[in-house]
């Protein structure tokens, strides 16, 4: 297995880089930069189904499940949101469903982005986090289901 940083390690790295900024302007400049660098999502994934509800801007989020790990890709028509997504992806992508489900995501508060978690209609970060965790839950359920399937089949084979 590749040497993947733990969720906590990535969070710590983000908190570290944000501690270097003295002003909000610099923080936002950094986030905007991340947003601009996030690769655009393939148009075929920009479907109604992949839209995250609860955002003033449009956010599309998809996830793939490979070798027990979840890989997210996302896009938005607003660049600050895109920067926030970029951070969430760097923290959560490539981890197991259980790790994603358990992730406390303290870095959002630590870097002072809690306003984006506020329960106003305009902020989508809360909805994005929720959607990412839903994907993890779904993949975990799928995995358990397939283990059960295997188990059943094995029993069946035995009984033959």
């Amino acid at each position, binding site marked *: 297995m590749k040497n993947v940083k733990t969720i906590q390690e990535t969070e710590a790295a983000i908190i570290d880089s944000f501690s270097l900024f003295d002003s*909000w*302007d610099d923080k*936002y400049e950094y986030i905007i930069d991340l947003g601009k660098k996030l690769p655009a999502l393939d148009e075929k994934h920009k479907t109604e189904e992949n839209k995250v509800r609860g955002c003033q*801007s449009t956010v599309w989020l998809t996830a793939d499940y490979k070798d027990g790990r979840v890989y997210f890709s996302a896009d938005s028509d*607003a660049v600050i949101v895109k920067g926030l997504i970029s951070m969430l992806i760097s923290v959560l992508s490539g981890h197991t469903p259980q790790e994603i489900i358990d992730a406390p995501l303290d870095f959002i508060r630590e870097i002072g982005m809690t306003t984006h978690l506020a329960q106003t209609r305009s902020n989508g970060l809360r909805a994005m986090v929720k959607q990412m965790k839903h994907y993890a839950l779904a993949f975990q359920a799928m995995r358990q289901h397939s283990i059960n399937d295997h188990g059943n089949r094995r029993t069946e084979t035995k009984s033959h």
Partner: protein
Amino acid sequence: MITTATIPVFDVYALRKQFPVLEREVKGKPLIYLDNAATSQKPAVVIDALVQYYTGYNANIHRGIHTLAEEATAAFEATRETAKHFIHAAGREEIIFTRGTTEGINLVAYTWGRANVGKGDEIIISAMEHHSNIVPWQILCEEKGAQLKVIPVDDAGELIMEAYEKLLSDKTRLVAITHVSNALGTVNPVKQMIRSAHKAGALVLVDGAQSTVHLDIDVQDMDCDFFVCSAHKLYGPTGVGVLYGKKHVLEAMPVFQGGGEMIKEVTFEKTTYNELPYKYEAGTPNIADTIVFKTALDFIEQTGKEQIRQHEHELLQYATAALETVPGLKIIGRAKEKTSLVSFVIDKVHPQDIGILLDNKGIAVRTGHHCAQPLMQRYGIPGTIRASFAAYNTKEEIDELLLGLEKSIKLLV
């Protein structure tokens, strides 16, 4: 002694001192509040009046025989009298207190609407309505098998009047139209529209949520059948609004909510209802905020509605001219008659990003669809950035808005 009438001199800097919240800082910068179309800030007299009510004469109204109840009742009814004068209603019984504009519209939809709209009937609204003046009519139409007709809007943000005239017919039961668009600032020619509707035999409800703070409202001259507005957009408290209805229309309407205050006599066999306006004011109302609403209306009168309008008009012109100099910026809504708000979009920039970056500079604007999604669809945009001005805003604040916009665009593009 000779007293002469003095015209109050409008001094925006003196006026600002009356609004405590304008002294605060946001993100380390002085607050620049440009979201007045959503709600206005409150002057100290309004805030003080709330404290005076709760510390001096808090009581339930209309029923009590004791001193506090008498004082509270008198203050509550004094607001009704002031509101009557403010919108030039013919009688105090035509002023019904609600929770706000939305409740006023729903009250009419649920009472007058259910009694007077039937299968095949039509209700006319416009493409620039707030969701609050769309959804109650949709619900009614669905329930009754009636049709909702929509007056289209042109590129400048004005209603297409020829289309309106064509929509009117003997099937039209009601025209529900906003006086001023919350997303564009357009002032609609409601008087002319009401005349046409009445000729077709329809009643008219005017949504005054955005107009009452800016324009002189004369419901008798306008000849509307219903008029609704909210106190919180009038420098007053949240949770109070006025529904005006012509007396004979209100009298013929069925009741809305049942409960205390709205009844005359209750037996298990039959209940007889109270007279206007109490017939529509079931339960203990929002006494404190209704009482304080008078203070807000008095504040506007004392500041001078004409002076405020003049000042706001200057702000509108100044902001429009300034915003036009920003490359890639397009103003949405260029009606000839507008109240003091500017809605705009910027090339390659999402309104939300601008909203976040302006907030970072202490500037409060509104971004998004402004609860007018059909109107945004009309212009093919996800939303706009809206700066809306009140009596206490200054040209210096607009300069700061411009600076903030220019810096934000540089960062985003």
